């Protein structure tokens, strides 16, 4: 997180992590198309080859934090391919929260696991404690054959402590929910660590309600 007192700006960094081809960029594209232009800027894609991310994608979102403070979210994706580990580690620097995008296909179980362990290692390398870092997990590609059933996912989700979301990013399903889940978790930790409410008058409930309504999510669903 970065705070600019002069321009009363708070910038939060969220990273979309996950194995190759799990749909990280597709998540950002979906958010970009679903959110109104006042909230989001252009989706920036840095260096691709054959439609595969080499560096990162960057999507900016801006919300009114109340109390005259503007809250800017920067959503990054990492390149999923194994060889780009140095880039992944660099992009993960200073992350405030991470959405892990897993591929629901049973055949991808192993690469999901490897990417998750790699994320854990890279968080540590960046001086971030994975145990306290805000993480949400999205099981993407729910529409494909050969995926784990919902019951299975729910059973697995109960074992872990990270919130689990189901999505079909190509259709935009579950994408906003994942982002909101990550935002809430991240914001609660930022509040705990930096007392944003006390110091800057940023009420977490008011702020999160504002974000939800800007994204068109009714209160009850959150």
């Amino acid at each position, binding site marked *: 997180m970065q705070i600019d007192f002069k321009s009363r700006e708070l910038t939060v960094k969220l990273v979309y992590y996950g194995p190759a081809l799990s749909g990280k960029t597709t998540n950002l594209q979906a958010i970009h198309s679903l959110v109104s232009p006042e909230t989001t800027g252009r989706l920036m894609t840095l*260096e691709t080859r054959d439609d595969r991310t080499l560096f990162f994608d960057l999507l900016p979102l801006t919300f009114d934090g109340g109390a005259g403070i503007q809250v800017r979210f920067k959503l990054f994706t990492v390149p999923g391919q194994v060889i780009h580990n140095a880039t992944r580690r660099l992009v993960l620097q200073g992350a405030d929260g991470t959405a892990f995008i897993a591929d629901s296909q049973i055949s991808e179980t192993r690469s999901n696991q490897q990417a998750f362990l790699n994320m854990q290692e890279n968080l540590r390398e960046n001086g971030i404690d994975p145990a306290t870092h805000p993480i949400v997990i999205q099981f993407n590609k729910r529409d494909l054959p050969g995926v784990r059933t919902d019951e299975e996912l729910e059973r697995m989700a109960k074992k872990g402590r990270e919130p689990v979301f189901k999505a079909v990013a190509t259709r935009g399903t579950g994408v906003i929910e994942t982002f909101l889940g990550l935002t809430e978790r991240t914001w609660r930790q930022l509040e705990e660590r930096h007392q944003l409410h006390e110091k800057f008058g940023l009420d977490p409930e008011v702020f999160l309600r504002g974000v939800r309504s800007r994204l068109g999510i009714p209160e009850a669903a959150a």
Partner: protein
Amino acid sequence: MNDAARTSGIDLAFGDVSGLDEVVDREALRDVCRSFFDLFGISIRVFSGNGALLADAHEELAIHTYLRTLPGGRRALSESVDAVIRTTPDQPVQLEEISGAVYDVVPLVYQGRRVGRFVLGPYLPAEMKEVPRALLKVDPALDREKVREALASMPRVKRATAERVVAHLRGILDLLVFSSHRAHLTSEMHVVSVRESYRELAEKTARLQTAYDRLRELDKLKSNFLATVSHELRTPLTSIIGYSEMLEAGIAGPLGDEQLDFVQTIHGKGEQLLALITSLLDLSKLEQGVLRIEPQLLDARELLVDLAKTFEPAARKKQVEIRVEAPPNLPRIAADPVRIKQILSNLAENAIKFTPPGGHVVFAANETDLDDDDGGGFGAVLLAAPRRAVAFLVRDTGIGMPREELPKIFDAFYQIDGSSTREHGGTGLGLSIVKRLVDAHDGTIKVDSEPGKGTVFTVTIPEAESG
């Protein structure tokens, strides 16, 4: 990973632009504004987030020129222009100046942050019909006719057109900022990625270096161990050989035939063991580089004649003929007599050992050039100037060796197949010791062989330097 070693990418990773001036080339921006002015005839000014004027394309208006000639006009004009320049709005606004002309002040927002603004105008709204009253009252000396004339020459723009022009310019500037920002992030990402990869490689290299140092240390320990053990083994062995020799000689009383046979076996095997231990000791000394070479001037032909004499009995026993082929007047070499004999004896012993009865072994010597085997190239004319040398050849008509085995035969403990040790004896140390001894003399050793036909070893020792 410690903090200092880590590549810093945090500023980059937040990927921010704080002002227009950071990402846009001023010269190019000026060109764009100038062509915009040429196209629409409306003045345009672009400011960065910090208020700096980045580009300015305008023409002095006749009304401004006229107003500046009047004290009241000058004051009123500068007040309204100042107000325009000071305005930094969050949303686009329209400001009017004393002449009734308007300015559109439009903020440039990038990724939720105000990075600059542009000011379009002044222009007269097409909808304006009357000369503003405030303008007519600005100075008592004002000439209404001149004012009308000046206003008539000013650009007139419809509200809707102005809005389209603003949107267009905004789009162009946004594209410029976005493209530059992306190019900036990409190049920075390239740099930090390279730095990060370098850091990773450097860490790996350091780990490899540590492992290598450790291995070298272990290798040294091994050599020391070998030296110590060989030395310690030799001491009791000397007693075993000595006492068995005395028993054999009958010093402790006469022995029966069977007893003598046993004692001779003990003595023989003791000697064999001693030879093996001596070889090990030599090898470890050579590996540690502590073997001293004490060179003397030697005659190659004499060495070979001596060698032939030494091996004559063993050869005769195996029905192998020995020949010496060495011309007189060979140059003398500088070599350690003990070590050079060790080299030649070893080769001779092998040659006789592997030559079947009826075959022959040749000890030859000739004068030659000692070439470095680097294949020439860089500075070879200077660096690889040939030296005069004497080549010793030990040629046999023995069983020979397969060509692919030849590069390995100088490795310690190497034997082409394990069975030859049992059949012919030997430790597999001989040739590795020979090679190191030759190296210690600054010489070279080569081997050529053909299975079933025989083998030639060529040892080349440089000529003693004259003077």
